[in-house]
């Protein structure tokens, strides 16, 4: 009997038993019939595995070197990698071709207290950085709130005691759509001016707000009233039949809808609008008395907001400030923040280095090219400017959004954008020299690491590319899991860490996987010195791993749960904790020094010959690398660039109040 018929016979015999009566046999048959192991044979190439196996044999010294060379030099051995690469390319192309791509998502940026999300009938507690998708219902408890962004258009804060669902979220080339529905509590929104095809709508139990670019708050109170407060721009609000009131007469329903549409209001800046529930009046209206009774509906009043009646003012101001503080260059509606609130709040714009800097790039990334004496200033939205610190040398723009910093190779700037493109720009002129697609980064996050005249590009879905300075692809390797830290080029291999604490070493010449090591917990940061890899785990352990011997040589317990980052410099390992602690070890794991700055380290540290330059929230520290002593420190304005950069004499960064800022070392 074949396995399938036998299976069905076993099931039928079982179902004949008394205890299995009233069982849905058709569904059971279907489940067994339609279930298969989640294993895609098309993604698995035995030939490629054979090549890897042969390599593995050499690594483990089972077959010494002779057998491997015999194999590698045979026509069959040479043919297999090409065939495997061809197969991988075909499967990747087909995969990408089949991908639907227009569902958008929200990214949680800040979360306080207890927030739960219901998704597909399951409840979970999200973290900072988690994504929210269509259909999610977000509930905030008392003293809890959540802030999330959707694309570069909107930042939304859901306040305590609220329930908000994401009814629709679409991010496609045809337009962006965001529909939210609030049934309890309140929320604050900063919405950038939308493109013509974009649409944002917020539904409350008794109204619908259409938004085209504004800052506003919504609050539902205990009397089931909805309050709108508009701080900038304007919104259109249309009343709707409240969710609590069920009207069965379709004609009456249509008439009411039409009446509400005709009486929709535009609420302008500094105005508030309160919609009462009007339950009694609505119940009293029928199709016959419609014209008389509809006038009895309370007309919501539009009032001018003042300090006394401005219910959400303080919350909104805090929200705008935190939204801006987090990463100003990527925040929507910045000009609004400065214009509208300078008078009433603490935001100010004192003397900048360049008088016109506000009109130019709000930098996300800043890089100094010593050979050209140029400071490159790149906004998250693709605007690039080069300045020699006295005047603008050139500017250019690429499409899409930048999520990772650029790489400078000689006189060329390489950067990637959210459209999965890698561009090479001439640093002398700003001209785009070439652009090529980098597939496999749907969120646009691509790590770029340079090595000589080549660059490694690692994408979120596990693709690693090696690309030449002229845009030629030298190889591509597809890993079956997400890459969790930037690629790390070593002597013969390039290393990447993927999910579940696995580090993979790939042959730098052809991208074939050679070694793999699994650590006990996920790796969040890696660095390399000599023949050793230093890997920082999510749970606060630093491993020194020798890939040649495939063994962990020592461990160092950092004694905190999260590690900001690790770097090696002059054969020493530096550990930077988010809370401001810095530890220096030698490559044998011995502690050299440890200091606590007492300030959160917010930017990637920079090394020069003698010092370590650290930017914290409000202070720049220059630390002597030898003994960990603070050479000097200075209070600085809030840094909005994602990095700081140095040349021989100066430190450069972008601040929220000063624009390009230079500190003389």
């Amino acid at each position, binding site marked *: 009997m074949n396995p399938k018929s036998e299976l069905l016979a076993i099931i039928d015999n079982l179902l004949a038993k008394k205890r299995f009566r009233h069982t849905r046999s058709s569904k059971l048959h279907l489940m067994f019939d339609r279930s298969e192991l989640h294993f895609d044979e098309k993604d698995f190439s035995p030939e490629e595995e054979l090549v*890897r196996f042969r390599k*593995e044999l050499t690594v483990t010294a089972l077959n010494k070197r002779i057998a491997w060379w015999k194999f590698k030099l045979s026509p069959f051995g040479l043919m297999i990698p090409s065939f495997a690469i061809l197969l991988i390319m075909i499967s990747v192309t087909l995969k990408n071709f089949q991908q639907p791509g227009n569902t958008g998502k929200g990214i949680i940026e800040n979360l306080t207290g207890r927030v739960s999300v219901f998704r597909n009938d399951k409840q979970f507690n999200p973290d900072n950085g988690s994504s929210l998708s269509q259909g999610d219902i977000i509930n905030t408890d008392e003293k809890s709130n959540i802030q999330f962004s959707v694309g570069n258009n909107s930042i939304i804060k859901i306040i305590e005691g609220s329930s908000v669902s994401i009814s629709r979220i679409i991010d496609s080339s045809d337009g962006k759509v965001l529909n939210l529905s609030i049934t309890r509590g309140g929320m604050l929104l900063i919405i950038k001016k939308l493109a013509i095809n974009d649409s944002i709508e917020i539904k409350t139990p008794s109204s619908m707000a259409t938004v085209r670019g504004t800052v506003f708050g919504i609050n539902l109170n205990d009397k089931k009233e909805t309050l709108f407060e508009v701080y900038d721009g304007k919104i259109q609000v249309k009343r709707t039949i409240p969710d609590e009131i069920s009207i069965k007469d379709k004609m009456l329903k249509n008439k009411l809808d039409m009446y509400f549409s005709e009486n929709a209001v535009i609420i302008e800046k500094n105005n508030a609008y309160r919609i009462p529930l009007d339950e009694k009046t609505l119940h009293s209206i029928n199709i016959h008395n419609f014209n008389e009774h509809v006038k009895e509906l309370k007309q919501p009043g539009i009032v001018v907001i003042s300090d006394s009646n401005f219910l959400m003012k303080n919350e909104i101001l805090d929200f705008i400030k935190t939204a801006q503080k987090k990463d100003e260059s990527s925040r929507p509606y910045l000009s609004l923040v400065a214009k509208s609130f300078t008078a009433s709040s603490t935001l100010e714009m004192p003397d900048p280095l360049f008088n016109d800097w506000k009109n130019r790039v709000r930098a996300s990334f800043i890089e100094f090219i010593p050979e050209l004496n140029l400071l490159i200033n790149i906004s998250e939205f693709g605007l690039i400017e080069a300045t020699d610190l006295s005047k603008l040398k050139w500017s250019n723009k690429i499409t899409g959004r930048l999520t990772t910093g650029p790489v400078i190779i000689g006189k060329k700037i390489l950067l990637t954008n959210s459209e999965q493109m890698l561009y090479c720009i001439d640093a002398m002129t700003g001209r785009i020299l070439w652009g090529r697609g980098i597939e496999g980064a749907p969120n646009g996050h691509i790590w770029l690491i340079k090595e000589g005249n080549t660059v490694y590009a690692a994408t979120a879905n596990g693709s690693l590319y090696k690309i030449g300075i002229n845009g030629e692809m030298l190889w591509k390797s597809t890993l079956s899991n997400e890459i969790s830290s930037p690629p790390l080029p070593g002597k013969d291999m390039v290393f990447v860490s993927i999910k579940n604490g696995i580090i993979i070493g790939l042959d730098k010449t052809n991208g074939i996987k050679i070694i793999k090591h699994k650590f006990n917990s996920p790796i969040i940061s890696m660095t390399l010195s000599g023949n050793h890899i230093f890997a920082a785990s999510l749970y606060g352990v630093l491993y020194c791993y020798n890939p040649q011997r495939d063994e962990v040589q020592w461990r160092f317990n950092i004694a905190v749960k999260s590690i900001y980052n690790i770097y090696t410099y002059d054969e020493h390992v530096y550990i930077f904790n988010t809370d401001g602690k810095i530890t220096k070890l030698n490559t044998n794991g011995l502690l050299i020094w440890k200091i606590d700055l007492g300030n959160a380290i917010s930017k990637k540290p920079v090394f020069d010959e003698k010092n370590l330059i650290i930017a914290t929230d409000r202070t720049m520290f220059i630390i002597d690398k030898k003994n960990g002593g603070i050479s000097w420190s200075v209070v600085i304005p809030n840094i909005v660039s994602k990095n700081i950069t140095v040349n021989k004499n100066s430190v450069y960064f972008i601040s929220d109040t000063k624009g390009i800022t230079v500190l003389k070392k």
Partner: protein
Amino acid sequence: MDDIKSSKDEDLVVHYKAGKERAFDELFLRYAVRIKRLIYFYIGDMESAEDIFQEVFIRVYRHIDKFNIHMTFSSWIYQIAINCSKNYIKKNKQFDAIIDREKFRVKDIENTIDTPEEQIIKEMDIKEFNRAIETLGIKFKDVFVLRFDQKMKYQEIADILNCSERTAKWRMKKSIQIIVQHLKDKSII
């Protein structure tokens, strides 16, 4: 070349022992997919499965000289694969216990996405189906995967698991019963 392609597994082992390196490659290519599937069933994680897969073939390569040609090569390599997988599970028990892995899915989902019932099976019930399989004892799991996924005959299963054919059949029946009971308890069927 043709000689190697058409040779039985056990003859390939003889060829390899006589110095024909390509005979081993042919064995590798013949069993690669089946062994990888089998390991994936036990581990449920593609990256770790890849490690174990390489380990299995290294073991085969190392010990092929000791292989008894009166035995079937298939049973031998399957035994090695199952042992390697179980050793891995034992070592990584703590880490893997927290991960709810879905090893089974609804097939041809692309063609049935619009069918309401199929949709329900995919999204809700398949999770419980996977959990039901995870509740099976290891001996039952062994038989289940070899019969349900690898479509092996009971005689072959019995050889691999070193039990009688009758025992293998009983374990398969029992596995189905456990899965059905689990689905019923969860009101899936």
